[in-house]
């Protein structure tokens, strides 16, 4: 456990990707099985302990500390594992330091009743770093700036093979991955189990910059709508015994198929599709707000399936049947995609249409009015255009010179800061989450501010320091982690807030919900009375609401 804790600690402070890779590879090389395999599983999210939950840790620390002091500390530190690791009362020489395999195997096997005693005995035996690493392991959120892909890349380097080779055999393997290490170190055969529906790293675009059009020939490009949904990869294939495996991946490779049985059962052709996850009702795309009801769920009820039918609007084909076609040009993949979708013939999958244009001027016109340029009733769900070279292969990552995104101009509104809350993670202990409002006529006459949204990014680290200082100096009230900040007509802080869209909402006092709000500019110069009124926002609501 000590070496593993040391590795996590070093990784947490190491900003450089190559140095992270070297640290992980060194660890994997120098650590025996099964320790290294469990460490790799921890870094790739492959360890899930059903009975070990954050609640267990909260209960343990509650037995040992004052609840108010714990709450204040957690609010300050912004990370449960770290707070508990720091506050845990030391019992030097209590027990022997546990080994990683012992910890992992016990966590898997122990029942709910044994766990608290077991975890407490380990926490007693470990030092602060060890406690932190153990708690990270149990809660399953390492947050040390290491992605599954990076850890696999480090593992691949042991055998000098490309990371994609590890990716290909990965889904057939189980922690502690003894077979994988045997193969990588030349002591065993390549693991057999080939995944019929593996994740393939997605291709990303660059934002279009001013002047880009001057250098680009419109004839070499195709354009599509950029849909306001969730980017997904749907992959399907058959195992050696003929059974079908279908997976739905997020853009980072997380399998989210469990929450979308309505899509999984419809994908009955071998292949891998790239598209946008949307909710469709009566052939109309619903708002992102509606889609959110289906997100972040492990399972889904029949009622959800009926009320929020999922749909994929497809724009690329990576694998056609069993043929990997990522090297083919975009235009050719698009032809294969059209044929694929007509074979599939499922109402859950449709083709994202191309936007016809002959010049950048025509595309500019289409982008500013998607409804009359082909998007029709779905125009509300368009957040801009994608511009893709007709000859571009499908490459992992964000290669230069192939794909651009050209977002619709954001809406801007001047709001007044009302409440601030401390952030988590990178911004822990700074007041970095801001609730802001606009003016409206109060029930008893006169004007009052009503909250319209919350944002926690859009500003630089230097600006964060300035706002944090402002919040501390202008606090009216404290409600736990939240501070009420001075907000009157003549004294207060005005933010220019940018957002992508607006929906009616019964959950908010103002009756409005902003999509993707962020702080565009800090208007230190502007008195709050000059901030916007709610009528400005109401005018932007979609008419069909």
């Amino acid at each position, binding site marked *: 456990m000590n070496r593993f804790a040391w590795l996590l600690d070093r990784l947490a*402070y190491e900003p450089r990707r190559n140095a992270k890779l070297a640290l992980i590879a060194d660890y994997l090389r120098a650590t025996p099985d099964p320790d290294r395999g469990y460490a790799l599983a921890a870094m790739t999210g492959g360890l899930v302990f059903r009975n070990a939950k954050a609640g267990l840790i909260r209960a343990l620390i509650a037995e040992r500390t004052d609840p108010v002091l714990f709450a204040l500390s957690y609010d300050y530190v912004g990370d449960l594992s770290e707070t508990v690791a720091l506050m845990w009362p030391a019992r030097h020489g209590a027990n022997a330091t546990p080994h990683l395999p012992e910890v992992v195997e016990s966590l898997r096997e122990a029942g709910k009743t044994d766990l608290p005693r077991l975890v407490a005995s380990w926490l007693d035996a470990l030092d602060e770093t060890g406690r*932190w690493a153990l708690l990270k392991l149990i809660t399953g959120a390492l947050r040390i700036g290491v992605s599954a892909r990076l850890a696999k890349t480090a593992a691949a380097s042991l055998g000098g093979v490309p990371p994609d080779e590890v990716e290909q055999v990965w889904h057939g393997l189980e922690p502690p991955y003894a077979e994988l290490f045997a193969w990588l170190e030349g002591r065993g055969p390549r693991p057999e189990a080939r995944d019929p529906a593996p994740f393939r790293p997605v291709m990303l675009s660059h934002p279009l910059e001013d002047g880009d059009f001057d250098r680009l020939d419109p004839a070499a490009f195709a354009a599509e709508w950029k849909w306001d949904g969730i980017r997904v990869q749907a992959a399907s294939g058959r195992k050696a015994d003929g059974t079908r495996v279908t997976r739905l991946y997020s853009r980072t490779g997380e399998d989210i198929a469990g929450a979308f049985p309505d899509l999984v059962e419809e994908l009955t052709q071998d292949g891998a599709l790239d598209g946008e996850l949307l909710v469709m009702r009566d052939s109309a795309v619903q708002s992102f707000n509606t889609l959110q009801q289906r997100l972040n769920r492990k399972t889904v009820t029949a009622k959800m399936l009926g009320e929020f039918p999922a749909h994929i609007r497809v724009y690329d084909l990576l694998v056609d049947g069993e043929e990997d076609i990522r090297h083919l040009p975009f235009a050719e993949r698009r032809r294969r995609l059209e044929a694929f979708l007509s074979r599939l013939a499922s109402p859950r999958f449709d083709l994202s249409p191309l936007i016809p244009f002959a010049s950048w001027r025509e595309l500019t016109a289409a982008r500013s009015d998607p409804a009359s340029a082909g998007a029709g009733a779905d125009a509300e769900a368009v957040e801009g255009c994608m511009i893709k070279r007709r000859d571009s292969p499908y490459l992992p990552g964000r290669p230069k010179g192939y794909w651009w995104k050209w977002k619709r101009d954001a809406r801007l509104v001047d709001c007044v800061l009302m409440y601030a809350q401390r952030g988590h993670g990178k*911004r822990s202990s700074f007041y970095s989450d801001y609730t802001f409002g606009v003016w409206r006529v109060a029930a008893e006459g006169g004007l009052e501010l009503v909250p319209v949204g919350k944002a926690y990014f859009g500003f630089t680290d230097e600006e964060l320091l300035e706002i944090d200082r402002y919040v501390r*100096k202008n606090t009216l009230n404290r409600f736990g982690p939240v501070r009420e900040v001075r907000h009157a007509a003549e004294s207060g802080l005005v933010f220019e807030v940018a957002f992508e869209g607006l929906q009616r909402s019964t959950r908010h006092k103002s009756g409005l919900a902003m999509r993707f709000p962020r702080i565009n500019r800090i208007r230190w110069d502007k008195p709050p009375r000059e901030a916007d009124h709610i009528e400005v926002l109401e005018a932007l609501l979609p008419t069909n609401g």
Partner: protein
Amino acid sequence: MAGAMRPAGPGARWRPSELLLPTPAGLYCPPADIHIDPVRPVARALITHGHSDHARAGHGAVLATRETLAIMALRYGEGFAGSRQVALPGEAIRIGEVDFRFLPAGHVLGSAQIAVESRNLRIVASGDYKRERDPTCAPFEPVPCDIFITEATFGLPVFRHPPAAGEVAKLLESVRLFPERTHIVGAYSLGKAQRLMALIREAGYERPIYIHGAVEKITAFYREEGVPLGETRLVAGQDRKALGGEIVICPPSATQDLWARRFPDPVTAFASGWMRIRARARQKGVELPLVVSDHADWDDLLATIREVGAGEIWVTHGEADALVHWCGTAGLRARPLHLVGYGDEGEAETEAEAADAPEA
């Protein structure tokens, strides 16, 4: 406290707020018409120590320890105040009917607590303090009192500073592991930098220690005061490319400047109590966090409060909520003073230090 209930006629015991009260300028003592560590210019000021959030220029008359007066003169020039007077450790100075005594606070060289006593009521304003051993200054001296005024910079039970010698050992171990990389250690230029040097020497490290220009004057002053720091050399004038494997001490702000990038493949370290919190270290781009603090940690705050035996605790700045809550659970009256202008969670200190830093 029983005495607080009596009417305050002439000669009667003061109500605490008649002897000392928080004002926007800082703590104020009406019967002596004097402020402690005022944050804006006042006629008469008592200064606990030389850090710039406590010791500001522009007061009429200043009373402080000899070392603190010297540090203020170094930082602000000889004309930092209209007049000055040296407070000898432990010796009472009477102003009006109030006795003031300066006692060591163990924070930095010359740092003092101030005991304010009149009509049988004793309030101790402790300024910033620590209890851990420090080879560069006199140790904190607990003074029994009715009311103890404490800071709470690290007033949360997550702050438990490990022994400083162990943290310095981590630094020296890293220097051994990466003999080709320069170790740049951010440390406040008054106190922390010199304490680190002294600890590094105690650990047996004998090479010269390289320093940023902003650390130079105070380091020279510590040396004149007889603190053994070994050989130091200014970075300015050296070939930085040749400083691989050396230790460089600079103000915290400089670790993120262009200044720091000209060293060969630098390792960025930062010596501060804030380094206990991982996110804090990462926010500052620190690769080697060293938990070395000149403030009392949680356990030492509680131990000190118990030791001085005060029935009432006032908390000046920092994480006041948690400390006030703990006092309640321990049966002590406590209140936060919400004084503004003192190292709010450490950021103000960084700022003040950054402002001090000349080009180097």
